């Protein structure tokens, strides 16, 4: 007779010894007066079988991690069809975001589009307007790159003050994946750009197959530089919610331009000035004038742990302070951490040297004295740009910008280990 993991049945022996009570082991681990039963008693997982292969043909996280999921803030939008949710960055480590918990932003819902039904049209000022199938795209030479995708509205709810109590909600409109795709340049050259003449003042207009279209104008210089027509992320097909089968990847630039279900690229001599680049994704300053074409994402960072959803539970002593940093203008070169609300700073350790337009993980391995902290992080990128405070940003932009809030974030970590989103002077 054997016992599988599935039902977590205690063995007869455990049952008789009384060690099967939930949590019995956890209590003993710290005190070790009579020996930890998780060690001294034979556990069912050490005796019977676990699940066989194929029990889950496509694996999901174990049930104990079921709280590490995307979450929505219902009051932000009228309906989930045109809405956004947030990556659980407080519970992740490393830099690659698993697709299954990477934030979603739809303007007309995530559509179900089969590869067989997929078409990509290149038209406008090209030598030969072309139509490609998905299979055609797979025959172009392709590249792999890791890039972050951040919604321009990430941290947007925090302009007027500390609002949302968790890194997932203040900074979770971001993900970071390894993309496989064809440079847009290759596809434009296949259609031929002689008809466009001087490329220095030309644009491409990119749009999706969904009802929203989400059309955006991109200067030709960027289109020919590093934009990818991507069909894989983290090694597997894109998820429906991220644009399956094909999305645009626009490194370092606001997520709204990363058009999903990409169906058309038009070469033109002027921007379209679509809804998404006039009425939205423009940044209104205090004097009522608005910035447009604010494509690049400024250097930014956040401590992901400890944070409101990831409190310190172990008391004083060794503590790993960890977070993420990124810049749309290149690589992160340094991250500083302050425990006193910005009076003094110490330089954190980067897990790996920063990579251009990709998330960088930082750690500050510290010894916590158990006193409260006002925890902040401050990123620097290869251009020498230093992540500003919210006060510095407000000085230039006022309170109504909505987008591109890259301010330094403060978590008030209390003696209890709990943390809260606060603003400091």
């Amino acid at each position: 007779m054997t016992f599988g993991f599935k039902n977590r049945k205690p063995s007869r022996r455990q049952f008789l010894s009384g060690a099967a009570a939930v949590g019995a082991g956890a209590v003993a681990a710290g005190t070790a007066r009579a020996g930890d039963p998780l060690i001294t008693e034979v556990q069912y997982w050490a005796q019977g079988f676990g699940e066989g292969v194929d029990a889950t043909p496509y694996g999901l996280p174990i049930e104990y991690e079921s709280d590490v999921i995307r979450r929505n803030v219902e009051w932000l939008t009228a309906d989930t069809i045109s809405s956004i949710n947030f990556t659980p960055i407080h519970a992740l480590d490393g830099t690659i975001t698993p697709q299954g918990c990477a934030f979603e932003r739809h303007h007309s819902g995530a559509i179900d589009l089969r590869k067989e039904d997929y078409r990509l049209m290149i038209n406008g000022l090209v030598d030969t307007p072309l139509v490609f199938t998905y299979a055609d795209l797979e025959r172009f030479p392709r590249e792999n790159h890791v890039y972050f995708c951040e919604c321009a509205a990430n941290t947007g709810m925090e302009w007027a003050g500390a609002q949302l109590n968790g890194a997932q909600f203040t900074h979770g409109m971001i993900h970071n994946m390894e993309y496989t795709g064809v440079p847009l340049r290759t596809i434009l050259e296949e259609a031929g750009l002689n008809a466009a003449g001087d490329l220095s003042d030309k644009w491409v207009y990119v749009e999706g197959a969904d009802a929203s279209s989400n059309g955006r104008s991109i200067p030709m210089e960027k289109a020919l530089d590093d934009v990818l027509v991507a069909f894989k992320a983290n090694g597997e097909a894109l998820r429906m919610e991220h644009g399956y089968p094909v999305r645009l990847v626009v490194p370092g630039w606001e997520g709204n331009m990363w058009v999903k279900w990409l169906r058309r690229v038009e070469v033109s001599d002027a921007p379209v000035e679509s809804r998404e680049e006039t009425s939205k994704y423009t940044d209104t300053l205090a004097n009522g004038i608005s910035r447009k074409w604010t494509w690049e994402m400024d250097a930014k960072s956040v401590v992901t742990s400890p944070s409101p959803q990831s409190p310190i539970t172990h008391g004083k002593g060794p503590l790993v302070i960890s977070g993420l940093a990124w810049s749309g203008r290149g690589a992160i070169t340094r991250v500083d951490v302050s425990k006193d609300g910005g009076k003094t700073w110490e330089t954190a350790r980067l897990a790996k040297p920063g990579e251009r337009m990709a998330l960088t993980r930082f750690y500050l391995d510290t010894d916590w004295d158990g006193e409260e902290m006002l925890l902040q992080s401050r990123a620097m990128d290869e251009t020498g740009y230093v992540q500003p405070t919210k006060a510095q940003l407000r000085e230039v932009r006022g309170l109504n910008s909505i987008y591109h809030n890259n301010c330094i974030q403060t978590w008030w970590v209390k003696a209890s280990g709990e943390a809260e989103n606060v603003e400091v002077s």
Partner: protein
Amino acid sequence: MSKYRKLLAGMAIAVTLATGPVAADKFGLGRPALPEEVAAWDLDVRPDGTGLPEGSGDVWTGDELFGEYCAVCHGDFAEGIDNWPKLAGGMGTLDHEDPLKTVGSYWPYLSTTWDYVNRSMPFGNAQSLTTDEVYAIVAYILYSNNLVDEDFVLSNETFPDVEMPNADGFIIDDRKTAEAHFVTEPCMANCKESVEITMRARVLDVTPETQ
């Protein structure tokens, strides 16, 4: 615009030098797009009206259509219901706390409204309106914003006559100059005298429950 053009030109030269001229070998993939295919998908309309099809619609027809297709979210008078977008009002609020951004108060180009209604509305039934219906609905949105008279007829010919109040309300991204002071040597010690907590998220209490 002129400043931006110069910037683009400079960058384009750099790209060309780095990667060679744009006249690469072709792979012979894909097939020519047929004219009717391009016509079916190339629907976008530019600020100068390029891309507008022939047609027209008047305010009162637009009023009826708006009531039928749009008012459920945007309200009978384009004033918006609940969290759905308000399309009218908000004039003169852009420099206020919480500005009201509508087609009338904020959108710089009429083409954007026509393009979006034509391509993406009504919500849940996009591309179901006829060309004349789109003209009529856009005419009604303009009327709701007091931008045209009640007898106005919007057409591809009257389109250039409409002036959008916030047409001059935009500047091109100036972060490189306006925020040049963020490129600096960061302070490491004695950066400020004292630190006070000035605002707390928990007091506001608008965070969803996650447990």
